[in-house]
């Protein structure tokens, strides 16, 4: 699964997610990715989120909407990402990953899997990483 979130100079936020699913999935299986509130969610009043992980579990906790809700409640994107993913881990025993950006341009990323490839660009500065701590 791949995904992106952004905020532009006009204060508009957007999110996108795309996936090839999982190896050996049943024909016709649909995971979280194309579902609003699961694979993505965004609102100019708050920010944007995109998720990755086990699609069935993400759908059960409406991960992207849950994450943005935490931002609505005042958490930073980083705290919101961590709280939403830890909730999914605790309640469904499923790890995953997510990225988020706020309407102000603050951003966060987190994964409780072994690794997640991510990158951020702000003020022309590109950062990226794969493993925890990078």
């Amino acid at each position, binding site marked *: 699964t791949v995904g992106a979130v952004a905020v*532009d100079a006009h204060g508009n936020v957007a999110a996108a997610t795309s996936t090839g699913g999982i190896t050996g999935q049943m024909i016709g299986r649909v995971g979280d990715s194309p579902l609003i509130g699961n694979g993505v969610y965004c609102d100019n009043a708050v920010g944007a989120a995109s998720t990755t992980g086990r699609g069935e579990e993400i759908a059960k906790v409406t991960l992207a909407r849950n994450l943005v809700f935490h931002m609505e409640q005042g958490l930073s994107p980083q705290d919101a990402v961590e709280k939403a993913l830890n909730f999914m881990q605790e309640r469904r025993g499923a790890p995953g990953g997510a990225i988020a950006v706020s309407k102000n341009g603050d951003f966060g990323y987190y994964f409780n899997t072994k690794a997640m490839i991510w990158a951020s660009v702000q003020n022309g500065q590109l950062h990226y990483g794969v493993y925890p701590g990078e």
Partner: protein
Amino acid sequence: MMAPSPTLVIHGGAGALSHTGYVDVDGLKSGIQQAARLGYRHLVGQTSSAIDAVEAAVCSLEDNPLFNAGRGSELTLGGTVEMDAIIMEGRDLRAGGVTCVRNIQNPVSLARLVMEKTEHVLLAGEGANKFAREVGVVEMPPEEFITEPRRKQLENYLEFQRAGKQIHDKDRELGIDDHD
């Protein structure tokens, strides 16, 4: 209120590092940087557009066979590719998605067309393909989306199934996470 600093954040999945034992981490790092740069171009200047930025970044990752989307998608039990994508913009809470498409080069771009040109939020399978033809999106041979590492990955999966192993046994033995 001050304008926000244009910002793009992207991910290439939490499971992309576990393909059949072979992991091209350098290739993944290169791909994610390229996608970030391509997306960020749409955030600078007067035409700064978040929706254009996320679409461009995701298209780049869909075109890269190392990532599980577009070309390089994981395979179904039938050995086929079925791709899903969604795009959403925060100004008016508009969204569009496609699911179970087999031969669209950039599903996220088709999802954007669903958002912009239909009253619906999600088109599936044949319906999505019919819509793609109506709006002039090029369809490609489905085989072009299937890569050798993904074939091998499915073979390993089926081998373990035949051996009566459970998913979690497979995960442990191959180090594979069954993630989207």
